[in-house]
Each structure stands twice: as C-alpha cells, then as structure tokens.
C-alpha cells in the first residue's frame, strides 16, 4: 500500500465516527498558551497574526508592568489597571502620567480577549493591538504620554539586556524584534491571557458545586436573569456583557446602550466630552450610547458607569429601577428616564430592599478571588526586587 493511501486509512481509523476527531498537527512553536479554562467555557478569539505563546505572554506581562512605557517614566499600564482591583484603579476618572484627568474611568483588563469593541465607547476600536496605541500615544488627555517618543521608548527597552532575549524568544525569526509592532502584540497577548473563570458563580454554574452560591446569591441570580429586571439583556452570557465574541462565534456583536444617566436640559445630551459613541460616529441617535462592560468582579471596580458617577452597586440598581437617573440641579441637571435616545430595554422595575440585597449578593459572587492573586498576572518586577522567584 503506498504512502498516501496508508495515511488516509490511518486517518480514518484514528478518526473513528462519533468520538474525538483527529487533531491537527501541533503548531510549530510548541510552547503554545494553555488557557486553563474548564470544559464548556468558550475560548477567546486570537488574531492569526498574533498567536499566543508562553514567551510572548511573559514579555507582554513584563511590558504591562514597566514604567519605561511612559514618557516621564512614572506610570505603566498597571498604574491604572491594578491586579488587586481586578485591573482597574478605583477612580471615577483615571489620571495620566502628567496629571491630566481622563473623562472616563479605567476599564478592567479582565476577559478583554472576548470583547468585540474596546474602551467605553468606540465602535471602530476592535483589537487590543490597536487599542494599546491609545493610552501610549494619546494626547487628549495625556495618559502614558509617549507621543513623539517612540524612538526613546525603543532605546530604553534595548538598553535592558533581558529584553533582548525576551523579544527574541517571543518573536523568533525577527531580525530586529524590539519594534513598536511587537510591543503592542506582546502587551495584547498578555491582556488576552487574563481570563476570569473561577468565581463562585463559575463554580456553581460550570463546575456544579452546590456550596458555591449562597441562598441569597441564588435568589439574586434568578432576579438578574428574570424578565422583570432584564439585566441579562445587556449583561448576559458567560461574560455578562453583550459585546462579546469568542473562538466559536459566527457573528460579532457589538452593542452600545444609552441607559438614561443624563439628559441635559431635556435635549437628550450627555455632558460634553462624554457623549459615548456619538463622539466617534457623530450620529444624533448615538448620543450617550456606551458599551456594557463585563460584570465579572464588579464588586471590586467601583465607582460605576463610564464616568464613575454612581458610587455603589446599590445606587446602580436604584438607577435601573428608576429607568434612568434624575439630576436635580447643577450643570448636568436633567431627567435621565426621559432621555429620547435611551435604550428601549431600560424601563424601570420594582425591587424590594431584600431583593436588592439578593441581587448584590449575586453580583458579589462574580468576584474571582483566584484572579486577584494569580501569579501569572502579577507584577514580575516586584518579585525581582524582593528577590523571589518570578
């Protein structure tokens, strides 16, 4: 029997019918990334030109925590995305390396690999590689403050001998691996690796552990997924967000919603500089539309909404129960529930204090403690300073 027929027969025999089919030949770079996800948990999409490898994720982690990535050397990505706060910073408005305040709050770099659009309100920013350029080189406001300083950035990295090896390992075959393109690819790969799947909710829902959710959280879960509250309409699915895509998705859904937070002077307007995707599309109907972020770890990422204008989860529920926020006086006064651009899914509901406590118990069950201390996502520079094992 000649070679092709033998191979075909072997393939058929190995394949069988109804059991696991023949896997494709292993990728050339054998140190591929193991997500560690439990069965049934969707895997993130990875762009073809930036596959996940152990070396690349490790380099990305080092860059994520490196203050060389700011113009004045005072900030790194982690300055606004701290692991212990589920990769946010606890501020209503993020503050950049030169002290300028951002109109919006830092978003959690958790499960970002599953997002179909990035930042609070930008329908054309879909890739982590592209998004990294914003905080690095953005000037309005200045965040990391590297605009015009890319040559200096590359020089700083090249001056650190360990980076030579790390870049070469992460991008084998590149004659000159320390380039901007590889910096953003490595950072993106690290960000993709930060996946949350070990919360009490996951233990109950995916791993079938009855002890994981309290009675209150179970009642809260039912309320969350009920037609009365309808939280799941925008905050549903395994990632509690409707702007989600994963390896098995056939369509890319990107949704933006106006939840009636503002209604300046009854015109439907949101405060200038924080008008949501309107600032990108300039379509009137896009006024105040923002992306629904993931609710995983939400108990740790106060204050809430794009501008941190709601301080607690209890007040968040009040906002949705009212069908929109009323601001009595001041420059932002207005009756949010009457915002003409408000999403039709925000209609308000009744919620007793006991029920509110149950929903909050459920939201707290979305906190992934394991993620907060996972060494895979921790600051490698800190470990070195204390002399520990990286």
């Amino acid at each position, binding site marked *: 029997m000649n070679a092709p027929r033998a191979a075909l027969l072997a393939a058929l025999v190995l394949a069988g019918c109804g059991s696991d089919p023949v896997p494709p030949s292993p990728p050339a770079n054998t140190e591929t990334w193991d997500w560690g996800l439990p069965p049934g948990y969707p895997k993130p999409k990875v762009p073809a030109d930036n596959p996940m490898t152990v070396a690349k994720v490790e380099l990305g982690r080092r860059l994520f925590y490196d203050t060389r990535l700011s113009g004045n050397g005072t900030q790194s990505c982690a300055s606004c995305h701290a692991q212990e706060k589920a990769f946010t910073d606890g501020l209503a408005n993020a503050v950049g390396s030169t002290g300028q305040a951002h109109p919006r709050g830092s978003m959690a770099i958790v499960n970002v690999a599953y997002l179909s659009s990035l930042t609070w309100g930008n329908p*054309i*920013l879909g890739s982590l590689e592209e998004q990294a*350029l*914003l905080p690095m080189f953005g000037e*309005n406001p200045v965040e990391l403050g590297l605009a015009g300083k890319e040559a200096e950035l590359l020089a700083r990295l090249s001056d650190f001998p360990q980076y030579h090896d790390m870049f070469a390992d992460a991008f084998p075959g590149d004659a000159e691996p320390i380039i901007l393109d590889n910096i953003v690819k490595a950072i993106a790969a690290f960000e993709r690796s930060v996946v949350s799947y070990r919360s009490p909710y996951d233990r109950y829902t995916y791993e079938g552990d009855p002890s994981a959710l309290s009675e209150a959280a179970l009642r809260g879960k039912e309320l969350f997924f009920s037609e009365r509250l309808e939280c799941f309409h925008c905050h549903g699915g395994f990632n509690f967000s409707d702007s989600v895509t994963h390896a098995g998705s056939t369509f890319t859904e990107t949704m933006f919603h106006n939840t009636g937070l503002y209604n300046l002077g009854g015109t439907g307007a949101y405060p200038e500089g924080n008008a949501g995707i309107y600032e990108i*599309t*300039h379509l009137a109907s896009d006024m105040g539309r923002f992306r629904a972020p993931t609710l995983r770890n939400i108990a740790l990422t106060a204050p809430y909404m794009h501008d941190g204008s709601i301080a607690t989860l209890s007040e968040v529920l009040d906002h949705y129960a009212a069908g929109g926020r009323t601001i009595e006086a001041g420059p932002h006064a207005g009756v949010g529930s009457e915002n003409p651009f408000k999403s039709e899914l925000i209609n308000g509901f009744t919620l007793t204090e006991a029920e509110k406590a149950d929903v909050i118990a459920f939201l707290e069950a979305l906190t992934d403690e394991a993620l907060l201390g996972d060494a895979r996502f921790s600051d490698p520079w800190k470990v070195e300073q204390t002399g520990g094992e990286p």
Partner: protein
Amino acid sequence: MQLRLSLVSFVGLAVLSGCGGGGGGNATGEVPADPIDVALAFEARVGDAAFDCKATHPGLGTAGTEASITDFRLYVHDVRLRRADGTEVPVELEQDGLWQHQDLALLDFEDRTGACANGTPETNATLHGTAERGTYDGLSFKVGVPFELNHGDAAAAPSPLNLSAMFWSWNGGYKFFRADALPAGSMTAFNVHIGSLGCQADAGGKVTACAMPNRAEITLTGFDPLAEKVIIDYAALVAGTDLSKDTGGAPGCMSGPDDPECVTIFERLGIDIKDGTLHPDAQTLFRVE
C-alpha cells in the same frame, strides 16, 4: 541567438527608461513620458515671520494672542501640476523610504527645538518626484492621508506613517494636519488636528468608510510651481479664531462638527464642516507670493 538579442533589448529598454527619473523609483511604477525631476518647495510662516519653534508669535487670531507653536506638520497626497489651460499632470513621488510613501508625503516644519518637544529634529519642506516635461502655471494637491493608507496598522506602518504624534487612534486613522499652539502664559493648548471622522468598521474591525473624510483640496495658480515656493501660513488659518479661549469641544479644533472653533478653521481650509463639501477657492492656509 534571437532570444539573447531580445533579452538584451529588453534589459536595455528597462535601463533607459529608468534614467531621468528619481532615485528610488516611482510611486505607481509608471514612468512619465519625457519625465523631469521636480522639487516643490514649501515655506512655513506665521504671518510675515518665518515659523520658528523657538519663537513666540504675536498677534494671532481675533484676540491678537501671542503664542508659541509646538507642532506644525501635515500629510499631502495626489500632487498635480497645473497647466495654464487647467489640465493637470500627476507628480510621481520619489519613494525615499522616509518622507514619501506611495502617493503620500509628510511635510514637517517643526524641528524639535524650543517649544516643539514632541517632534522630530528632521524637517521636510520639499516634495520630490517626477512629472512630465512642460510649462506649468499652478499646483493642486490634497491635505491628508488617502483612505487606502489611513486605516492600516499604525504600529507596523512604513515611514512616514510611523510617527506616533500623527496617530489618531481613537478615530481609527491619522491626523492629516497638526498645528498646536500654546498661548503665552497659559496652560491650555489650542490644537488644530484635522482628520477623518465618523468612520465605520466592519465586524472584523476594518474601517470601511468615513462619513467626514475632511481631505482639503488645495489649488494654487498663477505661478511656476517648479521655480517658486508655496507659503503655508499658520496665522492665516487661525485669523478668524480667538486662540485665547475655547468655547466648546476639544481644546482648539479636532475636526468636531459641533466644535465652534472648527467652523472658521475649516472654512480657511476650504471644507464646509456641515456637509463636507470642498471649496478650494475659499482656503487661505496656502498661498503664493
């Protein structure tokens, strides 16, 4: 024997056609018939004074503001020489791997001295290329990055699309024109950033179209573009604007259609900010003397 002869003739023709053109080959690969080298010079001014990163420039805008100018760069493309009868002849840009790429060129007047902290020491005030031999009466070009080049991967882009200060990532492209000023004694910059807005992307993240392209068309006539320079005057651009305050929108004008500061600036670029139509006869940023 015959094969060898045709090979030689072929090679010979190729060599001959390469002569007379620019150093690095031409943008589209087409060689103009009877080509000549072309150098189109620009000079940056602020009013009557030469632009200078180290100087403060007085009397700017409707409030006569004195300001230092911290950046002054722009992309141009689709450069054409105009004949007296109005017909146009394309300029094939020299591919120098630095300032010019395909049909695009970067003019860079800041030199990273004085107030121009985020710039590059290198400057470029001249477009180099080839065009058909002839007598010309004027020059036309567009300000900006052409659509085909405006939405690529900025991190991996070739020069001159690799300058982070010209990235406009939040709008998915580049700043076409960038002239930033800092009024004396103020902490608030007045920045003019022109670029495409209202861009939409498909599910894969690729930009498919932009509702407001904002690529100004510039037409200058009555001079010999091969011998005389074009003046680009920052003061003329902001003459109708009060630089000392910002009444709304981004600090300065960042092409926002709702930004009151953008209305007169766009007029002086020859763009109607309401409907996006181009009015080359209305622009005042460029002139010849």
